[in-house]
């Protein structure tokens, strides 16, 4: 297993002549958990689509699990952005997970043995996300957080080595978000995970490295949020403002960012080890 999960070299991509991504280089070792941060329109989702082989790069090389994009099939699990699946679509939880095993081509005939095997794989995936007892329910009867876990089950039903997630925690409530992140940390034991997010509060203990994407990509082999990462991820000028003001705190816990008055605030230093500390008594805003 020495093949890196993802290898990108000198990649660029243009939409209607405008370069969305350029000079992208990334070597992601197997077993990593990468959070891809960046402003909207910075090219995060495009990068994911390039990895999936849904769009062709303008130039440069991409290898996913050692293969060209789009060739690794079921070895890549994919969770699209909180999907526009209509709430009234008639499908059961089990039926939705089974769609993770769909293959191109026509269905001539599906034998009973194959049907049974697929059903068992789907039930296993559902029990991994803790929803086995809901298999027979209509998908529309589940809560938003549960539905998102069903889609994760659909992504892992084929037993992938790499899991690509597009905004997995968008539009779920705080508690479901924590449960989702715990689930992803657990799945990370078996597979490499790449998670696109514009929400920096998802960057917690389980994330192993961070990539900031804004036309180009900066890979930080560390999951601590530094002012530099803030600046790259929000697309702001590092000199122009303090990250705390850029974010206006938002969903980011105050303890992971620096004091307004700290000399390090805009100097490119690190947000120190306070991330895990509990005593942030006097620093509430």
């Amino acid at each position, binding site marked *: 297993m020495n093949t890196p999960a993802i290898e990108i070299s000198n990649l660029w991509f243009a939409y209607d002549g405008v370069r969305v991504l350029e000079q992208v280089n990334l070597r992601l070792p197997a077993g990593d958990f990468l959070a891809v941060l960046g402003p909207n329109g910075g090219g995060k989702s495009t990068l994911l689509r390039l990895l999936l082989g849904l769009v062709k790069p303008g130039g440069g090389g991409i290898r996913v699990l050692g293969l060209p994009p*789009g060739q690794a*099939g079921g070895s890549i699990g994919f969770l699209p952005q909180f999907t526009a699946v209509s709430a009234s679509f008639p*499908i059961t939880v089990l039926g939705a997970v089974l769609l993770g095993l*769909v293959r191109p081509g026509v*269905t001539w005939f599906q034998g009973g043995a194959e049907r049974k095997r697929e059903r068992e794989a789907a039930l296993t995936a559902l029990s991994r996300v803790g929803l086995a007892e809901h298999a027979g329910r209509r998908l529309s009867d589940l809560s938003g957080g549960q539905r998102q876990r069903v889609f994760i089950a659909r992504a892992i039903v084929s037993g992938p080595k790499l899991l690509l997630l597009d905004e997995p925690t968008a539009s779920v409530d705080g508690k479901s978000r924590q449960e989702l992140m715990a689930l992803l940390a657990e799945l990370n034991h078996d597979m490499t995970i790449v998670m696109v997010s514009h929400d920096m509060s998802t960057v917690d203990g389980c994330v192993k490295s961070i990539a900031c994407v804004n036309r180009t990509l900066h890979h930080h082999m560390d999951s601590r949020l530094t002012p530099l990462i803030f600046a790259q991820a929000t697309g702001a000028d590092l000199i122009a403002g303090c990250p705390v003001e850029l974010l206006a705190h938002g969903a980011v816990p105050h303890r992971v960012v620096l004091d307004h008055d700290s000399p390090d605030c805009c100097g490119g230093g690190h947000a120190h080890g306070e991330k895990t500390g509990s005593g942030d008594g006097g620093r509430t805003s």
Partner: protein
Amino acid sequence: MIEALGYEFFRNALYAGLLASLICGIIGSLVVVNRVVFLAGGVAHASYGGVGLAFFFGLPVLPVTAGFSTLAALGMAWVTLTSRERADTVIGVLWAAGMALGIILIDLTPGYNSDLMSYLFGSILAVPDSDLWLMAGLSAAVLVLVALFSRGLLAMSFDAEFARSRGVPVRFLHFLLMGLTALCVVMVIRVVGLILVMALLTIPPFMAERRARSLPGMMLLAGCLSAVFCIAGLYLSYALDLTCGATIIAVACVGFVVSLAVPQRHRPVAPTQQGLLPNGSGA
């Protein structure tokens, strides 16, 4: 009212209604869950150009209309894929252009054109055997195609982005769906006319969607509902001497209102409450 079955035209009307219901249940469900109802409306109306062509050149109407509306549908599918932003506008233009072409061609056709209205409002009581056979052939073709691509169609309808990531040929399936819609529209034109096609394509699937647990289940339920509307509408129009196509749609609309009034299936117990039960019994 059973004596109506003694007439061949009435039996043929029933057969035509049932065939149309079968296909409308299947294609209508796909149209509704893929949210291409407006496209289907465009295909239905543009197909009038095919009727005009057939009249002008003195060719058999159904085959020519089938060919013309399939071409129109593929054109519209292409527009939706290439210029997504203005697709609805372009479809509106094609919609009107097809109808205008049909009417102008019929104007230019010499002779007596009493049949014109029958394609706008349906002529289910005048379906000849030859049309029935053609409808049966089209139904069989639609059934085989949907069965062959069933899994891909389901994956695309549920989540096109995910389906694409799995290598499902979503583009091709989109064209296939629009082609099938065109064939379906041509069949239903015979029954209720192209003005009223939309009702039969959308009302039964809409009623079925919220009550079914799978896409095939939705298709089956929609087909059955559609058949009930067709049969009830036929008998009512016979008994009350009303226009057939309009009566079928009126019955469907009443069914639609009733289905809105009937309470939905109850949502199962909330997860938190479910969680409490085993704990309580285990203590």
